[in-house]
C-alpha cells in the first residue's frame, strides 16, 4: 500500500502531508526532514527511487521534481515503482487541470482543495482513481456542493468514461 504522499518545496518546507497510517505529528516532521536531507543531496537527472527505511525494511520512496517542488510517495512492496511514477503524473496532471499550469503558490493557497484531489485518487493507501478527468469531474461536483451550503444537491451518477488505462 501507499504509506504517505508528501509534497515539499526545495527549501524543505512541507506543502502537502498525508500519511495513510497514523503517525504522530512530530514523527511526521522528522520523517519529512530526513527525506529532505536525502533528496536535496541528490544530483539532478538521477533516478527517482530512494531506498527508504522510514517505515520498515521494505518501503521505498519515489520522488519527482516539478519546478520548485518535490512530490514524494512512500510505499511498500505491494506497489510497482513505475506505476507509482505514473500515479504521480496523474496527480500532477490533475492539479494542472484544476489550477491551470499549477505552481507552488497554488498548492500553498489551496490546502483543502489539494487534499480533496488527493483523496479522490488515493484512499486508505489504495489507489482508487487513475483518470485525471474523473477526478476533475468529482472535484467540480464537490466545489458546487461547497458553494451551496444549504441545499442538498443530488449529484447525478456519472456513467461515461470508464476506459481502462
Amino acid at each position, binding site marked *: *500500500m501507499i504509506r504517505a504522499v508528501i509534497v515539499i518545496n526545495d527549501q524543505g518546507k*512541507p*506543502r502537502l*502531508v*498525508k500519511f*495513510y497510517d*497514523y503517525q*504522530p*505529528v512530530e514523527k*511526521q*516532521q522528522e520523517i519529512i526532514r530526513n527525506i529532505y536531507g536525502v533528496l536535496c543531496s*541528490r*544530483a539532478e*537527472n*538521477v*533516478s*527517482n*527511487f*530512494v*531506498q527508504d527505511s522510514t517505515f520498515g525494511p521494505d518501503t521505498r520512496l519515489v520522488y519527482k521534481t516539478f519546478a520548485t517542488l518535490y512530490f514524494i510517495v512512500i510505499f511498500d512492496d*505491494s506497489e*510497482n*515503482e*513505475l*506505476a507509482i*511514477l*505514473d500515479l504521480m503524473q496523474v496527480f500532477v496532471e490533475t492539479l494542472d487541470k484544476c489550477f491551470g499550469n499549477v505552481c507552488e503558490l497554488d498548492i*500553498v*493557497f489551496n*490546502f*483543502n482543495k489539494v*487534499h*480533496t484531489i488527493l*483523496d*479522490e485518487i488515493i*484512499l*486508505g*493507501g*489504495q*489507489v*482508487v*482513481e*487513475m*483518470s485525471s478527468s*474523473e477526478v476533475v469531474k*468529482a472535484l467540480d461536483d*464537490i466545489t458546487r*456542493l*461547497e458553494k451551496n*451550503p*444549504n441545499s*442538498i*444537491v*443530488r*449529484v447525478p*451518477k456519472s456513467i461515461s468514461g*470508464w*476506459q*481502462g*488505462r
Partner: protein
Amino acid sequence: MSGGGGPSLMDSLFQRTLDDLIKGIRLHLPGAAQSSFISKSLDEIRREIKSTDSQTKSTALQKLTYLHSLHGIDMSWAAFHAVELTSSPSFLHKKTGYLAASLSFRPSMDVLLLLTNQLRKDLSSTNQHEASLALECLSVICTPDFARDLTPDIFTLLSSGKNSIRKKAIACLLMVFSQYPDAVRVCFKRLVDNLESADNVQTLAATVGVFCELASKEPRSYIPLAPEFYRILVDSRNNWVLIKVLKIFAHLAKLEPRLAKKVVELICDHMKQSEAKSLVFECVRTIVSSFYEYEFAVKLAVVKIREFLLDSDLNLRYLGLQGLLLVAPNHLWAVLENKEVVIKSLSDVDRNIKLEALRLVMSMVSDDNVVEICRVLIGYALKSDPEFCNEILRSMLSTCYRNVYEIIIDFDWYVSLLAEMARIPHCQNGEEIEFQLIDIGMRVKAVRPELVRVGRGLLIDPALLGSPFIHRILSAAAWVSGEYVKFSRNPFEIMEALLQPRTNLLPPSIRSVYIHSTFKVLSFFLHSFLLPGKGVNSSLSNFVDIEPGFTYSESEQEFTEIDHATSSSGLNKRDTFTQEAVVNMLTLVITSLTPLAESHDVEIQERVRNVLGLAQLAQQEISCNHDQKEKMVDKVDLKTSIIIRLINDALSEDFGPVSFSAQERVPVPNGLVLEENLSKLDSLCADVQLSISESFSLVKPILLPTDGDSISNQQNEEESETSPAESMSLLAEHRKRHGLFYLPSDHNKNASSSFPPANDPNQRDNDVEDLVKLTEESLVLKRKPSSSRPRPVVVKLDEGERLPITVKKTDENDDLISGAVRDVLLGNEASLRSSNPSGRRKGESHSKDKVENSETGNLSKRRSKHRNHGKNVEDKEENSEKSKKKSGGRHKARRRADGGIDVAVQKQVIPDFLL
C-alpha cells in the same frame, strides 16, 4: 455571542481566513517572527473555534488543520470541534470537520466514540460525496470499535450502484479487516463478487489491490480464488489491475506450485506484448522471484532486464539492476552475462545505480574470482568519491568475512588486501579492518607471519600516524606485532616503530595498545637473549625447520629484505639477540617511555610503568654483566630471567576466537537476581540480534585490543606495584581460569571443530594443514548440518532466534483474517451466521436484516455454483494424471494440524487450484 472566553462578534466579522493566515505566515520570516505570528493566530483560533456560528468555527478549524498538518502544531484539544462540524448540514463545514479528523485524530482518542453515529449516517447518505468523506476518514482513523459498528454500513456500500462509492468502500475494507477480522465473515463474499465487476476498471483495481494486500500477509487462504485471478489475468487490459494480480500470483505460487504452470506462459505473453514498462517490470519481477524454475521464462525475463539495463532512462536502469539482483541467487549466469554493464554501472552518476551495481558485483564473488574482483573494486574505490569508496570497502569486507571467510583461500593475499585498504585515503572502515586483522590472526595460524609482515609495513610508516581514520587499523597492527612478535625477523625494528615520536598523535586508548605491544616485544627479546633455545625461540626454530616449503620461502624473502634495510646482511637469526642489541633496545625503551611515566592518561601511565619496571631491572643486570663477560653463562639464573620466564609463560598462550554464548556459561554469582522481565527484551531486540547472528555466524573475538587488553591488564596492573613477576603469574592464572570461555581446543569434546587450530597448542606445527582444513571445512559447512560447528550451542541459538521472527510475520490479526476468509470461502455457514453482527445487535432496522438475508441466500447460490464448477474440473483432473499425482504430496504438506474439517475442506477446494 460574546461573554466568557467566547468569541466576540468582532471576531466573527473580521475573522482571518485560511488565506489570510497563509499570507501572514509568508510575510513573517521563518524563526522567531513566524512562530510568534503562529502563536498569535493560535490564540485567535482558540477563541473563534468556540463560536456557535458554524462558519466561524469551520474557518477556525481549517486554519488549525493547516497549522497542524504543515507546521506540526498540536490540535488534539480541538478534536471535539472537529466532531461537531462533521454533523453540520453544510457540506463545506462537514468536509472541514472530516479533513481535520482524518489528519489529526489518534486511535486512542476518547472523542472518537462520538463520531460513530455521524459516520454511520454519512455512510448511508444519498450524497456520494458525503459518503466519500466518511469513508476517507474511516480509512485513516479506523479503530476496532468503528470497524465493528460500521461493518454493516460498509457492507451495504460494497454493492452500491455508484462506482465511485463502491471502489472507495472496497479500499476502505482493508483497514476495517485489519482492525476487526470478523468483518471478513460479513463482507468477504461481496468483495469476491467485485472481482467480477468488469464494468468498472477502478472498482476492479481497488478489489484486486485489497486482495494483493491480504495475500501478501497470508497467501494460503486465497488459493481457492486463483481461478478468479486467472480470469482477470487473461481478460483485463488495465496495467494497474494486471500488476496487482501478478503480485497476488507471486504470493500464491510459493504455496501452490501447480499454479505456476498455468500462469507462467500467460505472464510471458504479457511480458512480450505489453508496452507499459511498469507491467513488463512486474512480469520480470514475478518470474525471477517466484517462477524461477521455468528456464524459458527466466531467459525471456533476462532479455527484458537487459533492455532495461541498456535504456537511457536511469529509472529503468536502476530497476534492471534490481531485477538482476533478484535473478542472481538462482541464475547467476544472468548476472555474468551482463557483467560489463554491471561493472560499468559502478561509475554511474547515480548513487542508487552504483549501489545496486556494487551489490550485484558482490553477488558474483566466489572463491575463484574473489582476488580478481577485489582488485577491480579497489581500483574503483580509489577513483570514487569518499562515500561510495567506503561503501565499496564495506561490502568487500563484509563479503569476504561472510561465513567466517568462506571464500578466502589465500589468506596471505587477503591480509595484504586489508593493508592496502587501510592505505586508501578516504578509508573509514578502520574498525572493521581492525576487527578482521585480529580475527584472522586468531583464527588462521598460517597467516601470522604474513600478518606480522603487513603489520610491520603499517607500523613503520610514519605518514599513516597522521590520519585519524587509520588509527584503529594501526592499533590492530600494533597488537598483531606484539602478540606474534616471534614471527618477526627484526623485533628491534618493530620496537622502534612502536616507539617512534609520532605515536603521540594517537589517541590514548590506541597508544596504550602500542605500549603493551612494546612490553610483549621486549619480553620476547629478553627471553630470546637470556634463555636461548627454549620456549618461544625453540618454537621459532621449529617453525623454521618444519615448514621449509610454503611459508618459509616467503618469510625468507622478507628476512633478506629486512636485512638489507638494516644493513646487517651477514647476521643470522640468532645473532640478532646479541648483548649489544639488547642493551640498545633497553636504552631505546627507557629513553622513549620515561617521559610517558607521568602521562595524564592512567592507562598509558600504568602500562609504561610496567614496561619500565621490566626494562630497568633488565638493564641493571645485563649491563653489569656486560663488564664481566665470563659471567654470561649464568644469565639463566638472573632475576630477570626468572621473571621473563614467568612473563613468557603468561603470554605464550594464544588467544582464540570466542563464542557469542561464552558469557552465558559464566555461572551466576550468588546473590545476583537476574531480572526476569529482561526476557521481554528478546522480542524487542529480536531483529537486531538476527542481523548480528546472520552476518557473524560464528563468533567474535574477545580480544579487541581496546577492551580485551584492558581486561587482562587490569588484573596485571592491580598488582604492578608489588612486582611484575607476581602480576604475570596472576595474568597466567587468569587466562587459565577463564580459558573455559575461549573456543574449545583439541582437548575439548568438539575436536572436529573448524576453528580451534588458531588456539591449539598441540597442533602448532601443522599450520598449512590447518589452513587447508579450515578452508575445506568452512566450505563443507554449507552442506553439513549445523552440528558439525565448533559450538553447536551457538548455531542452535541463532536458528532459534530466527524462528520467532518468521512466526511474527503473520501477526494475530492476519491469522484471524485468514481464518475468517477460509470459513467464508469454504461455506462454513454456521460460523458465518453466528458471527453476523445482526445477531448481536437486535435493535437493528428491518432493512438491514433483509440485506443480510438476501446475502446469505446469495452465498449459498454461489456455493452451489462453485460445486458445479468443481465437478467439471474434477473430470479434467482425471485426465491430467501427472498433476494429480503431485497434488497428493503437496496437500499433505499444506494440511493443517487441526485435521478433519480441513481435510474435507481441501478436497472441496482442489478443483479450483487446477483452474
